[in-house]
């Protein structure tokens, strides 16, 4: 294949343009600027898909936990997802502490997953980390699974009393959302 330059018949005067030519500069500049414009316009088109203000407004939830007795748990809603708040019994705390951390798929201690001096309050999302089902175990009489915590009926992931993954396909422990105790009996999640 002949290149364009070689294709010029011999004998014809080749008008060698200055390199780079002024016209190239203008063309590249104009197209580049149009590209910047397209990029700027694309931003709101992409960003409109992010959670809107009313969705984000739900991203903080306050909960009164005073009525939850040891051994009980409640299902609340946080960001339209289930939230489990559980008041662990001393036995459940002991079980969680007795588990060697090195045996865990996602090594965390109960202390890592609770607030200082509030070791009995386990606050997790009720969303299985496998494919997002709601595990059982927070409701009265539900199957708590072989490790006494939560049990996901979809693909059989079992969580212990600290909400840590112990068996089944889920990759990580139940997510502990950001939260804080704003009084002894009230938590603010998010």
């Amino acid at each position, binding site marked *: 294949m002949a290149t364009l330059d070689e294709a010029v018949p011999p004998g014809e005067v080749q008008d060698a343009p200055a390199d780079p030519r002024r016209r190239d500069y203008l063309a590249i500049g104009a197209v580049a600027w149009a590209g910047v414009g397209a990029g700027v316009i694309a931003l709101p088109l992409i960003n409109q*898909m992010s*959670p809107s203000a009313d969705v984000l407004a739900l991203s903080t939830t306050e909960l009164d936990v005073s009525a939850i007795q040891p051994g009980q748990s409640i299902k609340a809603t946080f960001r*339209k997802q289930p939230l489990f708040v559980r008041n662990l019994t001393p036995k459940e705390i002991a079980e969680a502490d007795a588990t060697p951390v090195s045996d865990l798929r996602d090594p965390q201690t109960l202390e890592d997953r609770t607030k200082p001096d509030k070791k009995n309050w386990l606050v997790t999302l009720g969303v299985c980390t496998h494919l997002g089902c709601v595990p059982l175990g927070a409701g009265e009489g539900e199957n708590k699974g072989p490790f006494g915590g939560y049990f996901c*009926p*979809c693909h*059989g992931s079992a969580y212990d009393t600290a909400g840590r993954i112990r068996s089944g*396909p889920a990759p990580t422990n139940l997510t502990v959302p950001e939260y804080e105790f704003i009084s002894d009996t009230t938590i603010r999640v998010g």
Partner: protein
Amino acid sequence: MSFPWAKQYEPKHPLMKWVDDRLPLPRFVYNAVGAGYPVPRNLNYFWNFGVLAGMFLALQIVTGIVLAMHYAANAGIAFDSVEHIMRDVNAGWFIRYAHANGASMFLLVVYIHIARGLWYGSYKAPREMVWLLGVVIFLLMMATAFMGYVLPWGQMSFWGAQVITGFFSAIPGVGETIRVWLLGGFAPDNSALNRFFSLHYLLPFVILGVVILHIWALHIPGSNNPTGVEVKSEQDTVPFHPYYTAKDGVGVGVALLIFAALIFYAPNLLGHPDNYIPANPLSTPAHIVPEWYFLPFYAILKAFTFDFLWIPAKLWGVLAMFGSILLLFFLPWLDTSPVRSANYRPTYRIFLWILLVDVLVLGYIGGAAPTPAVILIGQIATIYYFAHFLLILPIVSMMERPRPLPNSITEAVLAGKGGTSPAQTALATE
């Protein structure tokens, strides 16, 4: 392009001549699906399925546009609006059942269309572009079908959306951010439902566009045929109209009979009862399964239960599931045999049948509860699926000794073997 002997469009009426001089649209149609398109004379009924897929796409668009006139894409009332269609809208039950079962029929004929392409080597040179565009259509169909299934906002809709968008959370690092961006929230809700509806309305028209490209690309080399031997002369072909319009008409009749039987006698056969329960973000159905046409891919997703090479099981599953479809893009280059039709490929043929069984097994596993035995079978079937394309196909292509090909389509037809279907070949070899 066409063969030199293709009939030329000759407008008879002065008005048509006037139109043809200014916008040759009738000429375009004549050359595409009329008497101006010469087609191999030996096509069997497996060549109906392209037209059938086109018909079901058209039916889905028509019923879908009508349903959109009555449906409300708002998480608060979506479920009720679907019940309103079922109970209050005149013939609403019929239109909705036609749309829901039409999706199944569309996927069914497309699966047969793909299998036809695999058997007769329709993906090979010079038709690679036809195949690549076909895989694009298939991907678009899967996205459209999934988003359509979310719209009734029942339990399966909601939890299907949760699980499928959860795939994106498997991406390391940015996965959760992407998932939240796609959903417009932290869990499927009104924003997700609205955008799914918008895209569910858009994508069929994108599919239509790619279908036009698919047919355009097909008409450059012309249709493949059961012998896989290229057209050599005019006597190898017949005009598309009236020969194959008539033959396709038979297939259309049969397909519509099956379609009607589904709509009128078993409209919920392929659906899930759980989807007649309104979406409840706080309660998961005991057994989440996708629609039947996704089951083989769901089985591949579920086959990965262990971490391997620093990659977590969940990411493996997602990669394998997408990989199982993206692999099809490479098929024209994985199969290096110069012989197209499996009718003349004694070894390839056996492995193709095994692949078909393998996909059916995956389909069963995808819908089964995950007991240890089911997981193991799913893993073996998944390995086989990938092995077929990545190992068996290249090796068979090199080792296999194909049967002698006929010199021409006409010779094969006159010898009585022109339009052999897989079943006939299987019988003949036994």
